[in-house]
C-alpha cells in the first residue's frame, strides 16, 4: 500500500477547479478503485458515473492525465510511483457535476439515424447469414458506447458549432455496421453518412481508433471504406444497381448483358452509330490506392494537385463514341 497524489476536477457548469487529494493505493487497483475510495473516505458527494467496473458498459469515461480513458481499465501500475494523477471530465460534453458530463448529444444523434430495416419477405427464424459476413458488422457491434471516440474527435472537441452537422465516429461505425449487415434492406447507408451525418468532416486523424477501449478499427474498417465507396458510388448508377442485386465478390467479374441504365430494349435506327449494347462492362476504375489499400487522401502523396477524376484518372476526353454504350436519340450526327 502506498499513498499517491491525485488531482480531481470538481465543479459544475458554472466553473470548478482541480482539487488535490492524497489517497491510498493498493497493488492491482485501477483508477476507478481510487475514485471509489475517495468517495468512501473523503468526498462522499464526488460525482462519477460507473456501472460494471469490468470494461463492458462504458460508463466511467473520464480524462486521466489528459487522455480519454475508462477509469476501470486504467491500471495504477501504469503510472510512476511519484506521478501525480490528474482526473478531469470529458471535455467535449457539457459538465453536469465533477466527472459527470451531459452526453445526450450522442443519444440524439443515434435517434436521428435510420434504424435497421428488416428484409420484407424473410420471416423470423428464416434469417440465414454466413459467419464471415456477420463478422464485419460484429466488430462494430462490440462498441460499448463509452463515447471516448466522440470526446476525442477534434471535429467537435473544441468546435461546438460542428455538433449540429456531425454525428461522430460512434455513429459512423453504426452506419458501417448497417451498411455491412447482410440483410439490411436499405441501400443508402453511405449516402446518409455523407449527407446527414457529416462523414466528410472527418479527415482521418485516427484519434478515435487510438482511444477505443474495445480496439475497434474505427478509421480503417468503418470510416475509410465508407468514404471510398461514397466517392465511387456517387458517380456511378450502374454500381448502385449492381450493389443492390449482387454480392460484393460478384461485382467486378460479372458483366451485365443488357446495360441496366436503360429501361427496356433500345432500337437503333438503320445506319446509325455502331453501338454494341452487349459489350461487357467493367466496373468503374475507382480512385487510386496506396500499398495499404487506402486512398491517398493526403495531397502530398498524390501525383496530381486536385481530386481524382470521378470517371477514373486514365480516361481522356473526349471519349471515342464507339467505346460507349450510349446511343444518342438524335442519331449518329450528334
Amino acid at each position, binding site marked *: 500500500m502506498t499513498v499517491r497524489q491525485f488531482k480531481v476536477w470538481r465543479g*459544475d457548469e458554472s466553473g470548478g477547479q482541480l482539487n488535490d487529494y492524497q489517497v491510498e493505493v*493498493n*497493488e*492491482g*487497483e*485501477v483508477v476507478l*478503485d481510487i475514485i471509489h475510495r475517495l*468517495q*468512501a473516505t473523503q468526498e*462522499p*458527494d*464526488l*460525482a*462519477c*458515473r*460507473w*456501472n*460494471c*467496473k*469490468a*470494461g*463492458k*458498459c*462504458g*460508463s466511467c469515461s473520464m480524462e486521466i492525465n489528459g487522455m480519454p480513458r475508462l477509469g*476501470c*481499465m486504467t*491500471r495504477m*501500475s501504469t503510472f510512476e510511483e511519484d506521478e501525480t494523477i490528474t482526473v478531469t471530465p470529458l471535455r467535449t460534453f457539457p459538465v*453536469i457535476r*465533477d466527472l*459527470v458530463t*451531459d452526453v445526450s448529444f450522442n*443519444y440524439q444523434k*443515434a*435517434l436521428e*439515424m*435510420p*434504424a*435497421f430495416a*428488416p428484409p420484407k419477405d424473410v420471416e*423470423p*427464424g428464416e*434469417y*440465414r*447469414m*454466413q*459467419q464471415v459476413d*456477420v463478422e464485419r*458488422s*460484429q466488430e462494430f*457491434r*462490440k*462498441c*460499448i*458506447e463509452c463515447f471516448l471516440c466522440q470526446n476525442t474527435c477534434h471535429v467537435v472537441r473544441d468546435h461546438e458549432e460542428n455538433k449540429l452537422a456531425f454525428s461522430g465516429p460512434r455513429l459512423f461505425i453504426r452506419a458501417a455496421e*448497417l451498411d455491412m*449487415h447482410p440483410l439490411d434492406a436499405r441501400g443508402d447507408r453511405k449516402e446518409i453518412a455523407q449527407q446527414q451525418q457529416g462523414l466528410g468532416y472527418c479527415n482521418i486523424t485516427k484519434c478515435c481508433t487510438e482511444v477505443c477501449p*474495445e*480496439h475497434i478499427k474505427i478509421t480503417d474498417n468503418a470510416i475509410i471504406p465508407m468514404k471510398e465507396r461514397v466517392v465511387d458510388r456517387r458517380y456511378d448508377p450502374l454500381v448502385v444497381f449492381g450493389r443492390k442485386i449482387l454480392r460484393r465478390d460478384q461485382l467486378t467479374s460479372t458483366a451485365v448483358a443488357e446495360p441496366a441504365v436503360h429501361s427496356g430494349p433500345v432500337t437503333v435506327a438503320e445506319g446509325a452509330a455502331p453501338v454494341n449494347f452487349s459489350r461487357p462492362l467493367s466496373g468503374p476504375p475507382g480512385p487510386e490506392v496506396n500499398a495499404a489499400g487506402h486512398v491517398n487522401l493526403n495531397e502530398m502523396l498524390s501525383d496530381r494537385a486536385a481530386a481524382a477524376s470521378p470517371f477514373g484518372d486514365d480516361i481522356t476526353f473526349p471519349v471515342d463514341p464507339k467505346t460507349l454504350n450510349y446511343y444518342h436519340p438524335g442519331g449518329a450526327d450528334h
Partner: protein
Amino acid sequence: MVNIEAHAYDVVVIGAGGAGLRAAIEARLAGKKVAIISKSLFGKAHTVMAEGGAAAAMGNVNSNDNWQVHFRDTMRGGKFLNNYRMAELHAKEAPDRIWELETYGALFDRTKDGKISQRNFGGHEYPRLAHVGDRTGLELIRTLQQKIVSLQQEDKAKFGDYQARIRVFAECTITELLLEGTGAKKRIAGAFGYYRESGEFVVFEAPAVVLATGGVGRSYKVTSNSWEYTGDGHALALRAGAKLINMEFLQFHPTGMVWPPSVRGILVTESVRGDGGILKNSEGKRFMFDYVPDVFRKQYAETPEEGDRWYTDPDNNRRPPELLPRDEVARAINSEVKAGRGTKAGGVYLDIASRRPAAEILKRLPSMYHQFKELADVDITAQPMEVGPTCHYVMGGVEVDPDTASAGVPGLYAAGEVSGGMHGSNRLGGNSLSDLLVFGKRAGEYAASYTDELAARPKIDDTQVAAAVEAALSPLTREGGENPYTLQSDLQDVMGTLVGIIRRKGELEDSLRQLAELRERIQKVGATGGRRYNPGWHLALDLRNMLVVSECTAKAALEREESRGGHTREDFPKMSATWRKVNLICSLSTEGGVDLAHQPIPTMTPELLGLFEQSELAKYMTEEELS
C-alpha cells in the same frame, strides 16, 4: 414547497435492462404510451455483463433439442423447485423471442448453414445458447435499445415527436410506488422518483408499472453485479404489498476472479470451461471428479480421458464435471479452499492456457482475453486464472403469475431477475437472457391489456407524494447522520460472512440481530452536499432497499432446513423431499418488518411429469407425491 415534475403514461417500466426494454417494446406495440426509467444511462444496464448466451431450444446445432428437453434441464437445474408453468412457458417461447431479435437487427454467430449458432453450457443437455462471441448480453441490450430507437422514429414520422409514445428517462431513480385505495381495492396509481443529474423530483401518473430492476448483489462485497443492483424492485414490490418468493436462493457464480483486486468479482464465463478449461487446486489436482453428486453421476464423465473426448465427440462421451450446474461447482471450489488447497487470495486455478493453443483461446474467448489483459494484465492464454465463487444472481424475487407476470397488486408486473419462481433454487447459465425476453414480453403485453380494461385511471394521492419527498430529502437534512458508504460496507460484511455461500443456524441468527442494528443505523443515515448528482445521497436512499431484501434472504435462509441449489446449510447438508414442496414467502408487516410464511408449491401437470423418468423424480419427491 418543492418543485415536482409530473408525467402521465399508460405503462411505466422501471429498469432499462433486457426485461424492461422488452416489456416497453411490447407495451408500445400494443399502442400504449410508455416511460422507461433507467438508473443509469440508456444502454448501460447490467444485462451487458451476460457473456455466455441466451438459451433457446432452436435445435440448430443438435436437432434432438426441443422445448421438452429444455424444460427438463431447467427443472433439474432448479432442483424441481421451479414454478413449472414458468419453466414451461420459458422453454416453449424462448426460440421465438430469439428469432425476433434478428428482425430487430441482432447479429448472432452462425452455423455453417447460416442459422444461429448454439453453444454448450453447464446443465444444458444439447448445445443451446445463442451467442455472439462472449458478449451476448451487450448484443441483446444494444439490439433492444436500437429497436426502441426505431419505434421512436416511427412515432416521429407519425406524430412529429420521437418521444410521442416511448420516452427514456435516463439516470432517474424510483423511490416509491404510488397506490390508490386500501386492502383488496388497492391498485397501482404511479411512481415517484428523482433525477440523478439534477436531484429534482418527478411523479409518474400511470395505471400499470412493470418492475424490471434486476437483482440484489450489491449487498455482497464480492459480486459480479453493478452498483445498481440494490434490490430496488424487490423493495418497491414489498412496500406496495406484493410478496417475495424463494429469497434464500442466491446464485454464487463459481468462477469469479479473486485476484487481482481490480477485477475482483468479475465473472469468468462458463464458456471457458465449455471450451476446455479445467479447475485445479493449489496442489495441481483436477478436483471436480471428486464432487459429482449422485443425481448427476449418469451424465458426467468418470475419467479425464472421457471428459476430454467429449469436446470433440459429445454423442459418445459424457461431459467433464467442470460443467456441472453452477451451485455444484461453487460448492466444490468452496470445499477445496476451506480444506486449505486454495490459492493465497482464496480461490482455485482455472486453466485453459495449458489445454488449448493461444490462437484458439483468442478466437473463442476474445473479450475474456481482452478483459483480463487490460483490466489486470493477466494473459489467459499463458497463465491460469485465480477464481472463486462470486455473488451473481438472485433466483428469488417478486411472486408473479406465470402467464401474466402480474405481481398480485393490480397494475403491478415484474419480469427478469426481479421476479421469482422461474429458476427454482438454481438458475442454469443462459436461462436468464431468455427469461428476460420471454417474461419481459409477457409483462409488457399484460400490463398493456390491463390498462385497456380500466374503467377509470387511478388517482394519485398527494399525501403519498409528500411523504415520499420527505423520505427522499431526509438524509440531506439530517445533521451528523452516519456515512452511507460505511453503512453499505457493514451491511456487505454481515451478508458476506454470515449469509454467504455456506450457511449455519447460529450465524444466520446472528445476521438477523446485526441486520436489526443496521436497520436502526440506516434510519439515521446522512448525506453531505447538495441534490445535484450526489452519489452519497443516492446510496443513502438505496440502503433501505438493500437492507430489507437482505433481511428477507437471511430470514428465509434460517427457515429452510435443507441444502438445495443456491442455498447450502452446513447443518442440513441433504436435499429434503418435504422441503421441496414448500415455497417461503416474504411480505412486509404493518410495522415494516419482514413476515415469513410457508406456501405449497404448485403441482406439476401429469403431461409435464411424464417427461421425466420415475427414477429421476424419486430423487426429488416424496413417496406420497410419486404414487
